[in-house]
């Protein structure tokens, strides 16, 4: 998957149907984002904060990126009404499908380490003055090629979902999922292997 992402270098313009996306969003050829809330909570100041490959359909997706959030999405992905919460890093491969009302989060919203929480409280306070929030422990979410995630599912921070895995509707994914595994439940457990 890594090699593939490095190939996303020259993106032809995709489009957001409700205007121009933020300047640090790059959309590949024939990628379309619909929904007027797509960038309502997009706060990333990173260069190339959100890079989406070619031929993707992002229908009603919320790209909620914090100031330091970086997200890459490969080619031929198809997401409907997903909420993607990214304070750090979310990397999604090619041919990934994410269903309706599903949440992916790479963060617990505040740090667990007390000293970091002090910095976070300060950054969130009126004294924050645009100060960046602390680097919450690096717990990126990696969703590899060919993963399918059903509706009403939740994927938590630090999880790697292996290529070709199948996440059934309503699952809460708290741990890594091996490639081609089929999982279900809260917490998600392996129930089989994909063909």
């Amino acid at each position, binding site marked *: 998957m890594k090699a593939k992402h490095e190939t996303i270098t020259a993106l032809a313009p995709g489009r957001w149907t409700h205007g121009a996306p933020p300047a640090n969003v790059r959309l590949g050829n*024939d990628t*379309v984002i619909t929904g007027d809330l797509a960038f309502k909570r997009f706060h990333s100041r990173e260069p190339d904060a959100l890079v989406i490959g070619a*031929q*993707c*359909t992002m*229908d009603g997706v919320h790209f909620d990126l914090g100031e330091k959030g970086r997200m890459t999405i490969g080619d*031929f*992905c*198809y997401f409907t009404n997903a909420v993607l919460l990214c304070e750090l890093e979310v990397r999604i491969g090619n*041919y990934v*499908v994410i269903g*309706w*009302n599903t949440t992916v989060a790479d963060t617990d919203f505040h740090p667990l380490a007390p000293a970091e929480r002090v910095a976070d409280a300060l950054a969130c306070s009126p004294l924050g003055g645009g100060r960046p929030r602390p680097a919450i422990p690096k717990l990126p979410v990696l969703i590899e090629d*060919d993963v*399918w995630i*059903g*509706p*009403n599912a939740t994927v938590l921070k630090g999880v790697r979902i292996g290529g*070709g895995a*199948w996440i*059934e*509707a*309503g*699952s*809460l994914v708290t741990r890594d999922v091996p490639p081609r595994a089929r999982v*279900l*439940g*809260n917490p998600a457990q392996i*129930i089989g292997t*994909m*063909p």
Partner: protein
Amino acid sequence: MTADRKLEWDWYSGTVPENVVLDDTAYCETAFSFHFYRSRLPGGVEYGRGASTYLGTMFDVGPRGRVILGECALIHGARIICDAEILIGDYALISWNVVLMDTYRVPLDAPERRRELERIPAREPRLACADVPAKPVRIGRNVWIGFDACVLPGVTIGEGSVVGAKSVVRESVPPFTIVAGNPARVIRPLNAEERSRHA
């Protein structure tokens, strides 16, 4: 419903599709429920006598999908993802944010799925609609499904059974049984006294 298939009380400007059968005694809160509806079958959705659907209910029904709502069935807000057939029995009570699906919409085989995903960008609207085998879902008469529950393809829930809130049901449920959990497990059968009790 007006002659041009609008609902008089509706905030949404859309109409109820021609091939939806809305009994005079049934109630549909908003035509927005048909925003993703694409069935070409006659009676792609049929509301039985006294059936009702409220805001939050979405009929995500493919060209050959068909959803039947039984008499007095009440749906507070389900996402109904249907490419074959979803039957909801008489007097069923379905709570908010429920998912009923008879199809995964894409092939389970990864190379085949890639081919389908490669076709989506050329479609208008851009939808996954591969010819994958759908497995009908049957919600029995008098079933009660709690909020946030999901029912997966091929599942039949037997008459009178109860599905707890937030459950995910992947295996069929016998009649008159309480199930709950993710994955859903049998909690207990309804007992004789409960089954014989009449209103």
